[in-house]
């Protein structure tokens, strides 16, 4: 941890990861007599019950109910419904569903690819800037992170303005000043999807950057010194030392941003509303529309169950990565 943080703007604490590594080793240490005694100080139940009640009422129970509704023909407009698998057959034979899945897949894969590449590039630059006390590093990092704390709706609105074809659209104004005809970033179906991806990368890169930056700081500098002694070039050091050391953080990052992107709804709603046509209607937005625009609770619940299953799959992968890392 010899990264100097002398730069006034750089508020990172190089000790961050050390602080969090301590408890792991402490937890695995031999139990002391006092600790054995503390086991007799009542069960954990009273400590956990408030949280369990809250989560059961507002999370678990609704999640189970979604499953139940998916096997009905329920509608928001009618109080009565009957059970069956009609909703599943209707959703799974609807070509719209597969179109939405395809759009979602492109959206998620492209977003995570660019977020990881850009996030890693920025993390490397910020780390280098902090190590060499390059002025402006802290300010720069703050700017990147600011885009991440903005409400998703506002991000959608910002990009809706920036990409607009009207006189107030920034990109088209720039293109216009260079004599290039205006581009329908939000009105041409193929381009619109990439506009949504662009806005999502703008929003999500900071999160990848901050995790990867923490990962970079935890790499033992001795590895680089050894590499230098062996005559490794900067590029070799990156491929042979940096990337392999970042593997666990990269994997965790991958899972987290996949699920975040997958659940994205607000930003798309403000940016394109899923249009033009259905060109940018991702699964979360589709689920909302089916229920709250078409009032079809049964079919919307089928989509929600699919979302739930995917979340579950991502969680299992995440837990595997986490426990694999813990064992190191």
């Amino acid at each position, binding site marked *: 941890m010899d990264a100097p943080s002398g730069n006034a703007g750089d*508020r*990172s604490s190089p000790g*961050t*990861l050390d*602080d*969090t590594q301590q408890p*792991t080793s402490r937890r695995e240490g031999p139990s002391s007599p006092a600790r054995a*005694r503390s086991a007799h100080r*009542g*069960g954990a139940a009273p*400590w*956990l019950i408030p*949280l369990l009640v*809250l989560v059961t*009422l*507002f*999370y678990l129970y*609704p*999640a189970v*109910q*979604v499953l139940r*509704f998916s096997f009905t023909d329920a509608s928001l407009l009618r109080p009565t419904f009957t059970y069956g698998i009609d909703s599943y057959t209707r959703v799974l034979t609807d070509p719209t569903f597969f179109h939405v899945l395809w759009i979602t897949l492109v959206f998620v894969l492209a977003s995570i690819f660019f977020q990881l590449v850009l996030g890693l590039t920025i993390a*490397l*630059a910020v780390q280098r800037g902090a190590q*060499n006390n390059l002025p402006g*590093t802290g300010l*720069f990092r*703050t*700017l990147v*992170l*600011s885009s991440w*704390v*903005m*409400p998703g*709706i*506002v991000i959608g*609105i*910002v990009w809706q*303005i920036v990409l607009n074809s009207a*006189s*107030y659209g*920034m990109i088209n*104004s720039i293109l216009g*000043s260079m004599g290039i005809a205006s581009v329908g970033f939000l009105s041409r179906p193929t381009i619109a999807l990439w506009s949504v991806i662009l806005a999502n990368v703008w929003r999500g890169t900071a999160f990848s950057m901050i*995790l990867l*930056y*923490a990962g970079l700081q*935890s790499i033992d500098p001795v590895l680089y010194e050894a590499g230098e002694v062996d005559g490794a070039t900067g590029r070799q050091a990156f491929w042979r030392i940096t990337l392999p050391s970042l593997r666990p953080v990269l994997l*965790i990052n991958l899972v987290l941003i996949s699920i975040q992107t997958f659940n994205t709804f*607000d930003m798309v*709603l403000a940016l394109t509303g899923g249009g033009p046509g259905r060109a940018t209607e991702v699964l*979360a937005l589709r*689920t909302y529309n089916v229920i709250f625009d078409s009032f079809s*609770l049964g079919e*919307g619940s089928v989509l929600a169950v699919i979302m*739930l299953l995917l*979340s*579950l799959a991502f*969680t299992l992968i995440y837990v595997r990565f*986490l426990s694999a890392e813990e064992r190191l």
Partner: protein
Amino acid sequence: MTVQRRRRRGDVMTYAVFFFCLIFFGLPLLWLISLSFRTAEEVYTSALKFIPENPTTFNYTSVLSSGRFQQYLLNSLKLTMAGSIGAMLFAAPAAYAASRMKFRGRPLFLIGVLSLQMISPLVIMIPLYRYFADLGLLDSHLSTSLVYMAILVPLATWILKGYFDGIPKELDEAAFVDGCSRRQAFLRVILPVSVPGFAAAFLLTAILAWGEFVVPYILLSEPAMQPVSVGILSFQGSFAQTATQILAAGSILAMVPAVAVFIALQRFIVQALTSGAVKG
């Protein structure tokens, strides 16, 4: 000589990355700020110009003087505070138990908390909407903030547990030796030294709560009850085509609280985020 040259090349590349990202991340915001200070004529006539000819604060005053927007901001503040503080109240004891006590199903509890965080709030809103409608709990800040708490509680638990893990166990044990019960040890010894952990949990959950959209969008249809994350969308509906400069000013007002808090206190947040997410 070569080392120096390599170093200088590295500096140049670092600044190249900074420059590219400044444009990518900064320019859209700069454009929004520029729009928010323009007069209506300048929005629709002028070409590429970042600095308005006749800068005006009219857009801001007109947004703020409409009582509706103030109400949005106030509602956001209420829901954010209730959601974040409530989430910490529910999370703190559970996080302490997860950090200090051995109980059956502890790994399952931790994985469960983690997996809740992966579930889109949209999914749980589907049945909740129906039930709240049946119970007459729509358009209520009370029921909405309970849902906020439920959505924020996994993150709060995770952050607080991470912080408690970093506090030496000897502290609790010393308290037991002095005759404290578990509860007393927690309240009198651990809580006072956990203020930075609570600050981090509060800030992160508050930033999330400020931007939370799906929950209030579905539960609050009465404009007077809506937070700014929902209200700005109806602003977009009414102003996007006709008065973009007003929408720009509103968007900036909607993001400023979260961004300002973040910039002022980013040290806490970044630390909590990286330790919580990377180390689990």
